[in-house]
């Protein structure tokens, strides 16, 4: 479990020789995919330095749940890189089938203050997993850095 602002957050980073992975858990699929996004935000910059001064909407539709996880995180990465918007946290309002509706909170990227971390080339489909567990849900995804 990673720590964020003193609270335990339900994601952890996975080892990969060249890159990194994220494993997120949650009671619901919505919570789990929001946690995975929090994990990605933590790779992109130091989220403790990001203030919640704005938000971005995400409406993503994919072929299945695994692709939805990959596409959703890729949309976030795109917003970070192209719109230059730094995220602090995410809320997934609802998932219907393989469609997701969510909001990301943060502010315009200020490299001097947000300490950008790794550039994520892409979120990959390698070993992607979204599954129901006895405790709730688990999502796993690897990033190409």
């Amino acid at each position, binding site marked *: 479990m990673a720590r964020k602002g003193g609270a335990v957050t339900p994601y952890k*980073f996975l*080892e*990969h*020789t*060249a*890159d*990194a992975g994220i494993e997120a858990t949650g009671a619901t699929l919505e919570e789990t995919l929001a946690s995975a996004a929090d994990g990605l935000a933590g790779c*992109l*910059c130091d989220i403790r330095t990001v203030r919640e001064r704005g938000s971005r909407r995400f409406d993503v539709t994919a*072929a299945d749940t*695994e*692709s939805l996880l990959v*596409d959703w995180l*890729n949309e976030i990465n*795109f917003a*970070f*890189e*192209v719109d*230059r918007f730094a995220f602090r946290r995410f809320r997934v309002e609802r998932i219907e089938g393989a469609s997701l509706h969510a909001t990301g909170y943060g502010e315009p*990227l200020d*490299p001097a203050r947000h*300490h*950008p*971390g*790794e*550039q994520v*080339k*892409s979120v*990959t*489909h*390698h*070993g*992607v997993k979204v599954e129901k567990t006895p405790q709730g849900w688990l999502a796993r995804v*690897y990033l*190409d*850095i």
Partner: protein
Amino acid sequence: MTSQTDIRSVLRKLDDQRWLLPEEYRQGMRVPGLIFASETLMAAAAQEQALEQVANVALLPGIVSYSVAMPDIHWGYGFPIGGVAAMRVEDGVVSPGGVGFDINCGVRLVRTDLDVAEVKPHLGPLVRALYHKVPSGVGSEGMLHLSAKDAGQVMVKGAGWAVSRGMGVPDDLEVTEEHGCMADADPADVGEKPRQRGAGQIGTLGSGNHFLEVQAVDEVFDAAAATAMGIGRPGQVVVMFHCGSRGFGHQVCEDYVREIGPRMASYGITVPDRQLACAPIKSPEGQRYLSAMKCAANFAWANRQTILHWTREAFEEVFHRAWQDLGMRQVYDVSHNMAKIERHVIPSPSKGEGQAVGASPAHGGRTELLCVHRKGATRAFPPGNPDVPKRYKDIGQPVLIPGDMGRYSFLCVGGPKAMERSWGSACHGAGRRWGREAAKRALRGRDIRQELADQGIIAMAKGWASLAEEATEAYKDVAEVVEVCELAGLTRKVARLRPLGVVKG
């Protein structure tokens, strides 16, 4: 056998550099795996999922001879890093993941007339000038912002676009793989998102393992080949940099994996890992991907050409001489993430284990058009190959193999057995020993920048983490990797280069 079988127990050692992964290892393998590695490198590869990935690639339709892996093999996505796979154009597939996200990631080497003694007193200002001229790191944008029209030209003309803008000279193109431009790149096959990601990123290094280094020739192994490349003596200063197609290429790969994945079933293709998504080369999806990949490859060459121009400018500012007077000629530019349609000779059927992947026409066999995927592998054509620039036809294609920022890199040329053993391919670097998180954990508390300074190396990076992740300890010894390629006849060593100044993302 199943994937649960310990892979090491089924590997067969063919000789001191080659290992065979029999096709019985996994049901559905169309060809065996062939891994180039020493005992030590194989022990490292066997600890992660890289060898499973060699087996996975062998499942793909149309693969010929072997699923090949270079000695710097490590765990990738779908394909292993260091993977080489040739598919028949007629009935084979092309896999965007088999090229990777960083399409045409590659390395460029520039020689100078300068000597270490002349550069040392100016090394600090020189590294600072390079750091400021060539933006690096996350969120970095270049000094150029491409208009829609320019973006179209970049996609079609590649490095030639930059040269036409005064950033470089035609001679630079002569010594760039494919002359810095893949033909038949149609921007209509590239969506809006790659253009948006790439618009501000021309002339930027990026982050991760991308770098720009001022280096000194440390040792010359082949004086004649070195001379042909303008490398004369130990102490001569050169510049090497490593980067690719930035967000443009990343997005092209992402878009096509997303598109092709759900379409595979209609072609009767199933893959064990979604990142292996592929389409028949001759299908509309396959053709459009190849065209978009070429656009991204051309973006990468325009990027490296622009970086070359700014590197020359940085030297001019620091040494107050024109780059021509400093002898800053490009030695070569190689790609190590690409799928290319190449003509190879395929050996006659089964002459036993470890037979050639390709062959020389003299040994029989038939010539066929193949789509050669190189994922973290460098093209390494031998002397006399028609695709080698004229000035290098007697020595072979230069092969640029970076090591790590604390030790050394190598300048090699394509070796005599490359065509028959690895589809004219060689390693592309040292390969990681530690993951990024592991490196940061292991090096916590260490002042990497000072440690490098104590070795006489000036390093500039965005932060401690970038340096820790790329520290010497995080990498295997590239000399061992290069040695395997040398002994296997894939490359010949020409010179070893040691870092003086390092710019990291």
